[in-house]
């Protein structure tokens, strides 16, 4: 089936619903909950039409929509999807209903505001993946900031205000410099073509690689522009040493916020690297930065894993594991071979699924016991067998067991990077061992060690709602692990085009 203006519909429907939600009085909490779920499922359903209407044989942008927005400055409302953004958009629309289900009971204060924030955030995320105009991209990119700030700050844990402000300011540090870079690119386009300036990605792909290099770093506009974009995305990923906001944000955010943060927001950083840093700059500039990105990625992999090893809080452990896992994604992006890049994109989806599931599962026991300390659990495998089984499956996915999704992504990244960056691959390989160590060590202490806390005997197993939320995630974890080609095929042409442009 073909739907007119499909991309706009998927992008703007959540925001339109959010405005509508504003008119429903807050005392109808159940209505807000069910409507939010309904809207998010509808958006997911619509986004499936993007998949069915998508032609995997070509790497160019499809289903494009273009409207003049501020024509005198070369700004347009331009959306389009290629194989890379397709997967990430589907990941987003897929995770939002999961998040709403996961927040069903835990968000009891002002649920109206929570769901409005979540829907606005959805529009921001989808829009940022689909935007083909850099001004539009920036608007969506910043649009994500405000709802997430509220989600952490209003519905978060004890140190939520600190975490929310830190999240906001860190992200903004990167994005304001990116704004200057975007303005420069648009201005340069006008100079290069002798015509009007343009913020259109497809225009800038042509003109941006031609910005002249200077003799030194600080006189080389492309190097500085790359750094401006790179900083914005490196903070979002987050790459070492810009990761310090992440553990705070994750620990303080409510479960739903953590799932979205880990599942989608971080991917915008890695996506940005691929789309803009890789797509807009000449090979020369890219090559100059590759060593730096590789080194920071590898440090991130090892450092994230080592810090995760000593965490006492499960959520913090998962947060640091994200730093480590996204290191692999960045390694794959930086290595820049066909296999490593495909692996990186797939690993973005994988991380979204498995870490999203982990945060959801941590939320499940937190709702019951109001603690996330590993030491407060122990021996609960017998009490909550279903929970244990699900948790272990997700853990295995996260540490890259063959047959599950994590393995495919990591294997492609490491195998693809081996030819060009063997040393980095050796270090990254050590990271995998550390990854298994910290995850299994945590599982051991939470589920098996002797039960020392009597209150854990009364722990209830997962209920139907929680199972409904987590089962789709498990299904995809297995699907990608068993038959990754379903997901690799659509992106192949797009990745090839990006790498060879």
């Amino acid at each position: 089936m073909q739907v007119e203006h499909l991309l706009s519909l998927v992008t703007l429907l959540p925001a339109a619903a959010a405005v509508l939600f504003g008119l429903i009085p807050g005392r109808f909490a159940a209505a807000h909950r069910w409507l939010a779920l309904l809207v998010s499922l509808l958006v997911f359903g619509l986004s499936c039409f993007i998949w069915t209407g998508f032609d995997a044989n070509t790497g160019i942008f499809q289903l494009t929509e273009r409207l003049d927005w501020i024509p005198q400055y070369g700004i347009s409302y331009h959306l389009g999807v290629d194989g890379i953004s397709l997967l990430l958009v589907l990941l987003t629309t897929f995770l939002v209903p999961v998040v709403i289900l996961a927040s069903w009971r835990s968000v009891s204060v002002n649920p109206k505001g929570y769901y409005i924030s979540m829907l606005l955030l959805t529009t921001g995320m989808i829009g940022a993946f689909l935007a083909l105009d850099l001004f539009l991209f920036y608007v969506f990119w910043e649009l994500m900031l405000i709802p997430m700030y509220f989600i952490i700050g209003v519905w978060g844990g004890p140190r939520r205000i600190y975490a929310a402000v830190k999240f906001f300011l860190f992200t903004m540090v990167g994005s304001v410099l990116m704004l200057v870079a975007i303005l420069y690119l648009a201005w340069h386009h006008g100079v290069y073509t002798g015509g009007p300036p343009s913020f259109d990605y497809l225009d800038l792909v042509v003109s941006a690689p031609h910005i002249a290099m200077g003799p030194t770093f600080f006189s080389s506009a492309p190097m500085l522009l790359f750094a401006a974009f790179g900083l914005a995305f490196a903070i979002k990923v987050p790459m070492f040493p810009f990761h310090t906001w992440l553990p705070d944000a994750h620990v303080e955010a409510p479960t739903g916020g953590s799932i979205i943060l880990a599942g989608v927001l971080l991917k915008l950083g890695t996506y940005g690297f691929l789309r803009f840093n890789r797509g807009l700059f000449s090979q020369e500039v890219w090559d100059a930065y590759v060593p730096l990105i590789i080194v920071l990625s590898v440090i991130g992999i090892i450092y994230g894993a080592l810090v995760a090893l000593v965490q006492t809080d499960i959520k913090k452990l998962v947060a640091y594991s994200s730093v480590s896992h996204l290191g692999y994604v960045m390694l794959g992006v930086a290595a820049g071979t066909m296999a490593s890049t495909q692996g990186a994109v797939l690993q973005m989806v994988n991380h979204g699924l498995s870490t999203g599931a982990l945060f959801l599962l941590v939320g499940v026991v937190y709702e019951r016991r109001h603690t996330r300390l590993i030491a407060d659990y122990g021996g609960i495998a017998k009490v909550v067998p279903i929970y244990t089984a699900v948790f272990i499956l997700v853990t295995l996915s996260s540490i890259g067991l063959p047959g599950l999704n994590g393995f495919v992504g990591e294997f492609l990244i490491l195998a693809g990077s081996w030819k060009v960056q063997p040393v980095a691959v050796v270090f990254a390989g050590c990271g995998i061992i550390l990854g298994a160590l910290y995850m299994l060590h945590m599982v051991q202490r939470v589920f098996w060690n002797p039960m020392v806390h009597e209150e854990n005997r009364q722990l209830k197993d997962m209920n139907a709602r929680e199972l409904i939320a987590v089962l789709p995630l498990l299904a995809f974890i297995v699907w990608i692990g068993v038959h990754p080609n379903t997901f690799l095929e659509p992106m192949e042409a797009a990745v090839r085009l990006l790498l060879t442009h």
Partner: protein
Amino acid sequence: MVPTAADLIAVLPEIVLAVAAGLLLLVEAFLGGRLRHGVAVLVSLASILVAGWLRITMPLTGDVWGGMLQIDQAAAFVDLYILAALLLTVLMAGPFLARNQIDRGEFYSLLLLSGIGAMIMACSVDALALFLGLELLSIPLYVLNAFLRKTAISVEAGLKYFIVGAFASGFLVYGIALLYGGTATTNLVEMGRRVAAAGQLTPLVAIGLAMVVGGLCFKLALFPFHGWAPDVYQGGPTPVTAFLSVVPKGAALIALVRIVGGMDLVTVSSRWILVGGIIAVASQSLGNIVAIVQRDIKRMLAYSGIAHMGYAMVAIVAGGKDGGSAVLVYLAAYTLMNIGAFAAIAYMSERESEPHFISDLAGQGWRRPVVALALTVCLFSLAGVPPMVGFTGKFLVFRAAINHGLVLLAVLGVINSLISAFYYLRVVYVMYMEPLPRREPAFPRSALISAVAAVTALAVVAVGLFPTPLLRFADEAVRYLLPG
């Protein structure tokens, strides 16, 4: 000189306002009882709407009053924005004055007179008319600031504003005299043409120019002439603060664009970019950094206002048509979000004689959702977060800077807006993330003020999402503002 009919018709909107201002004094004198205040508000609203309607429908006649005033697209842009600010201020002032028992007709009369001054300043192409406009703008404001005459800080605000304002006027008029000495004309267009033709600044012109720019910087509260702003903002009645924070600044900015742009100062003087850049960056940095430690929200907005004029200054320094149009758009954006913010503050304040502590807003996000949301939108807009109109303004300002090769100014500007996000966010989290205090402040409810805040906030988002008409109007206006 005897004015012709054409001269009078050209300034009909100003005349309407002036008649209304006179009428208001009569109303005050002859009408009694509770009717009086309502009539005063209605008369002022009607006169503002009529003036706006006249400005929109009447032909723009160009040079009038012997070349003293120029009624063109630029004047129309600024007039409409001044009238909009007046309208919102009057709407906000009605309930506010009644609540504080100062509901007197003189208030509106003075406000209208001040607005006329700003409108004259905006369309004057002659230094003397400019000065006349500035005085007419300022003198009523001195009185208005002290309108809470039983409150010490209000009287103090009025007095401070008066003394500093007198200084600024002195600067300006002395500078005008020197410029006249150096160029032998008081016509700004001609003056600009002569300076640009000379290709350099003679010492006389340079000193005169410095004094004129300094005088205008006083009005704009730009570094190093910003000292008065916090006390005046804090002390004055909130609707007056809202008016004061946008209208005189707008008029002064237009004058600055006319003078600096007309002289083509960027090419005439090698030092201008340095001097202007320092004023811009120092205002931004000082405003933003000092705003962080403020506990009174009106003082905080005073410092934020200093920073915002610093951003606008970036576009003036960049120069050119795109710089000029960025200034106009920035003004419109700043007016909307600032008036919205002050309306919300006027709503959420117990007694005007007390400081407006940010901490008093704790928990109000859920208690008064409409006004709090309006304030939030305006604050995010002030911080320059899209899709609010504040972002559009900043975007154009930094775009102008980059187009003219001033990348450093753009970078320092965005770093400054990052710093500003910190203190704007603080108000937001106090409202939404901190619990209501045990003794909840008793904010008197006023549907009118909350409507002003809500409508302004809506406009902030709407214009931010669809800025094209505003940008087109500004582009059109700037062609008249900077001819050639």
